[in-house]
């Protein structure tokens, strides 16, 4: 049956190959040029996906993915916990000086990012890294640019306790929930009992309610998803609505560009880490160790999935934590970000050093291989893209973003 489905999709490739080029961006015609004039670039050829490319396209969906409760969080998926988490997410009292809520940096109107190269902390200092979106965060293997957390509640706890960010501590969080009558009541509703005298336990529960809320922040469907599904069901009319430029960019993305080596699956990320030649110097003489430091933090954390706060006695989701390997090459590696809603999450990279999608594509096009680890991967090569190729790839990336409601 699976093979039959692919055969149907492969058959569609013939149709797409013959699709008129009506939606292509205006490109110089391929007519003969005057003898003295430079040759005009040829118009891009219509897209004919190979069978391998069609399989790769199918592997980028479907979207959204099925929602599964997190067994490490006993309130994951509970409506009361989601509501409580939403309230906490917007409450600046979670920060030590009462000025920063989660929502201050993860702004709903900016795809739950802050739009800044690096996040701003409570003490008005830049943190070292770009603020990542909290959309589509449920069910990931690793969290944060360095993957120092293996679960969403630990990831939610980290900025609340970080002196450079919200600057609090477990005693501050627990006291807030114990002393505010509304929060205390809602905590009791969610967790079945009033907040205990154990500060750390209450603080982790706050983080678990925040995680339950964030699991619900799922991006909507995109033009790419509609195209991918149209291919799957052999709907040529629906597939033809996908712009030709995006289609060409997609063919490059899953083909020659080999972007799906890392940006794979429905999230457009393999959830792992890589070195793509972005500087990991934070300041002169100070480096961001990236994944190398993240693994060290993970292994020493009380809040990892092997620790005492995992609500799942079987540790069913702890396999990655048990087996993760610390390698020298992890130094300066950062997490492969999801590309969903990527047009709304600028600036890009772990340090926010690239302001636009077009410049991200240029980074890969002109990649300086000398900046990659000598003992690292040999996947990345300069793509050497023309202006038209760049336009196509940007058009494809933009098609991974949910259209705004009219």
């Amino acid at each position: 049956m699976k093979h039959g489905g692919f055969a149907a999709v492969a058959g569609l490739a013939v149709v797409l190959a013959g699709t008129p080029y009506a939606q292509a961006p205006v490109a110089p015609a391929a007519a003969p040029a005057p003898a003295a004039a430079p040759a005009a670039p040829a118009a891009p050829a219509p897209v004919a996906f190979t069978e391998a490319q069609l399989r790769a396209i199918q592997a980028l969906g479907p979207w959204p993915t099925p929602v599964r409760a997190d067994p490490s969080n006993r309130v994951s998926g509970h409506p009361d916990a989601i509501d409580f988490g939403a309230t906490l997410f917007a409450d600046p009292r979670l920060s030590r000086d009462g000025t920063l809520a989660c929502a201050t940096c993860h702004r709903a109107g900016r795809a739950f990012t802050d739009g800044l190269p690096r996040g701003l902390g409570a003490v008005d200092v830049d943190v070292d890294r770009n603020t990542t979106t909290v959309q589509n965060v449920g069910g990931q293997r690793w969290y944060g640019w360095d993957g120092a957390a293996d679960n969403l509640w630990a990831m939610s706890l980290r900025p609340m306790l970080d002196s450079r960010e919200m600057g609090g501590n477990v005693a501050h969080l627990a006291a807030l929930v114990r002393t505010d009558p509304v929060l205390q009541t809602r905590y009791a509703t969610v967790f079945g009992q009033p907040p205990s005298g154990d500060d750390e336990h209450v603080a982790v529960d706050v983080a678990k309610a925040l995680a339950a809320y964030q699991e619900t922040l799922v991006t909507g469907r995109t033009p790419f998803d509609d195209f991918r599904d149209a291919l799957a069901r052999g709907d040529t009319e629906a597939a033809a609505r996908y712009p030709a430029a995006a289609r060409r960019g997609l063919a490059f993305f899953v083909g020659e560009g080999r972007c799906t080596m890392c940006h794979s699956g429905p999230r457009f990320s393999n959830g792992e880490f890589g070195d793509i030649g972005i500087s990991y110097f934070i300041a002169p003489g100070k480096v961001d160790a990236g994944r190398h430091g993240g693994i060290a933090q993970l292994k020493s954390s009380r809040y990892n999935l092997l620790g005492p706060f995992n609500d799942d006695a079987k540790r069913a989701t702890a396999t990655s934590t048990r087996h993760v390997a610390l390698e020298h090459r992890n130094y300066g590696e950062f997490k492969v970000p999801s590309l969903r809603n990527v047009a709304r999450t600028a600036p890009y990279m772990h340090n926010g050093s690239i302001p636009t999608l077009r410049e991200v594509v240029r980074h890969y096009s002109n990649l300086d291989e000398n900046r990659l680890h000598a003992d690292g991967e040999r996947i990345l090569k300069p793509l050497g893209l023309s202006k038209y190729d760049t336009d196509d790839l940007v058009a494809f990336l933009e098609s991974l973003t949910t259209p705004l409601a009219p």
Partner: protein
Amino acid sequence: MKGSQLLVLGAALTASAAQASTQCGAALPGDKRVLENARYQVAYQTSVNPVPVGTHFIVDFAVCPRGKAAAPSSVRVDANMPDHRHGMNYRPKVITIAPGLYRAEGLLLHMPGRWDLTFDLVTGNTTQRLASTLRVE
């Protein structure tokens, strides 16, 4: 559940060693692949087939010495992408289920493409490596 089945099957393997030596991996239920060199045969199967990208999987395998070769004193399992010069981001753990029968846990292939699944069989100062190619999409 599968582990307990293997324990039982492993006991059966021990009880009928002669049969196992002629049919390496007979204790493994279902489809399996057999690798061999002059000294060993390795029969293995993966908990998911085909192996998907980005999902942990288990490898159950039998090691069968050939001729006068000694049984390995230790066994390691790993995977790498030769074209990319990197391995996995995870270090598998090998558990002995029964004499000659093992389970490797914690493997995860994080990229599509060609992976070499390797079995290192250590006897004294010698390591014999048998490898199997997996194409992952």
